[in-house]
């Protein structure tokens, strides 16, 4: 019975297996990015970027129909343009990155909406907005896996400067010029993973599988490496449980994944070992030293 509920759907249906594979690939790449977004206090930057890539994807869709490559390319172009312009403006002027990003993503969003309304709308656009993880074809799955692989490789390359820039940016500036490129590469990874997530979760929820696991991890460890591992596991677990939930009930798949992650997050906030609310209320007797 339990077996039928938890494992059965994946054995019986190929689309469930594909969905599971996609969710795991998304977790492996997206969750570490989410941890850095959180630690660099850029959680909402991820959200803003999700809005920024939306018009690019919509334009890709209008030009060539429901073709993931066109939509991905459009999303990447819009996302990179916004990320790089915002990064360059923030670095060459005194403007804070969030302020400059807000300007550019709003411009991008306005431009996208204008283009869409001039060219006429389509119901399929809903697909872009909310995704459909249960409709993964081979091509899409390969793109998702490829993007995840690229993400992990690039992250490995920029890991050290990224960490140092997060802790002590001034120090990195005095010893190396790697800080700027590392930061831009990181923004590019954010965009890639958002685009990657939108087939599965839609543009609006894609950022959820990055940020929520990071938030969960933060309540269980003070060590960066452990944090990243917890985030990946939490993301994959939410993905799996969300798929099962969606299969057994009528909850759509994307929201189901994010809702499961939200439940994990609430549990972590309450019972987390590091700064969880219950732990703070009942810390135990103080130590000797």
């Amino acid at each position: 019975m339990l077996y039928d509920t938890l494992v059965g759907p994946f054995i019986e249906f190929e689309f469930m297996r594909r969905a599971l594979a996609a969710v795991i690939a998304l977790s492996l790449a997206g969750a570490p990015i989410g941890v850095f977004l959180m630690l660099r206090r850029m959680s909402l930057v991820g959200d803003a970027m999700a809005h920024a890539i939306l018009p690019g994807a919509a334009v890709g869709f209008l030009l060539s129909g429901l073709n993931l490559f066109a939509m991905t390319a459009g999303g990447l172009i819009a996302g990179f343009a916004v990320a790089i312009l915002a990064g360059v403006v923030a670095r060459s002027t005194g403007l804070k990155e969030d302020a400059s990003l807000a300007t550019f993503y709003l411009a991008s969003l306005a431009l996208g909406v204008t283009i869409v309304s001039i060219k006429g709308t389509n119901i399929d656009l809903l697909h872009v907005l909310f995704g459909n993880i249960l409709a993964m074809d081979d091509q899409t799955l390969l793109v998702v896996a490829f993007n995840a692989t690229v993400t992990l490789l690039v992250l490995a390359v920029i890991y050290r400067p990224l960490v140092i820039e997060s802790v002590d940016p001034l120090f990195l500036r005095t010893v190396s010029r790697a800080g700027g490129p590392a930061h831009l590469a990181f923004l590019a990874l954010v965009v890639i993973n958002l685009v990657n997530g939108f087939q599965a979760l839609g543009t609006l929820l894609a950022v959820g599988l990055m940020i929520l696991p990071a938030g969960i991890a933060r309540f269980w460890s003070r060590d960066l490496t452990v944090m990243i591992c917890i985030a990946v596991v939490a993301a994959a677990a939410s993905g799996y449980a969300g798929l099962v939930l969606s299969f057994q009930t009528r909850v759509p798949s994307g929201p189901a994944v994010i809702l499961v992650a939200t439940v994990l997050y609430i549990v972590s906030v309450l019972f987390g070992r590091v700064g969880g609310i219950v732990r703070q209320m009942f810390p135990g007797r103080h130590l000797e030293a």
Partner: protein
Amino acid sequence: MAALHFHNVTLGYDRHPAVHHLNGEVARGALVAVIGPNGAGKSTLLRGIVGILRPLDGSIHLGGLDSRDIAYLPQSAEIDRSFPISVFDFVGTGLWRGTGLFGGIGKAARGKILRAIASVGLNGFENRPIGTLSGGQMQRVLFARVLLQDASLIVLDEPFNAIDSKTTTDLLALVKHWHGEGRTVLAALHDMEMVRNHFTETLVLARGPVAWGPTVEVLTPENLLVAMRMCEAFDDSAAACAADDTRSRAA
């Protein structure tokens, strides 16, 4: 051979000079105190030396040094203390010049890091997250990182602010040790007693240089009084600097 050569250096923000027309040299291996009231331009000068701030005018020569041969300890480091990183890893970033992006931290490097942590008196703190340290302990950690940077020019911006006397004594010993090893050390300081007792050379700064030379000659009540008076606020409607005009006309 000079470690640092200032040629008519003007440093500032938004065209307003904070350090005005500084000329002079710092000899290799010198131990220099930079003193002056708040807003005198001490930090600005140090930022110019390490290359974070580009001079508005004039130039600073590093005597053949790469900017990576400089270890810089800023006054209020923009350190995110909430970031989950251990004392060991944080101090280890001081080895950047050797490791770069990918270089591994081998057994020898691990030993170096542990010795650096021990020599600032933080034995046993290796695995503590930096967020759990007190102000003085964090300053010790920063000194350990400077130690690992193994730089020939060390620039310290008010390194003993808000630090208790025991920590100050320990860290000052480290500074003198660096001096003994022939490294050039520049430190912005407020404690005149310390400057008098431990620093051979002093630059009194108040927007412009007031006096510069051996501490015994420079650290006089008269010079300090002049420095106190010279610190005025930025004038938003100030005209372009006339000293530059005469200079260019002469040239």
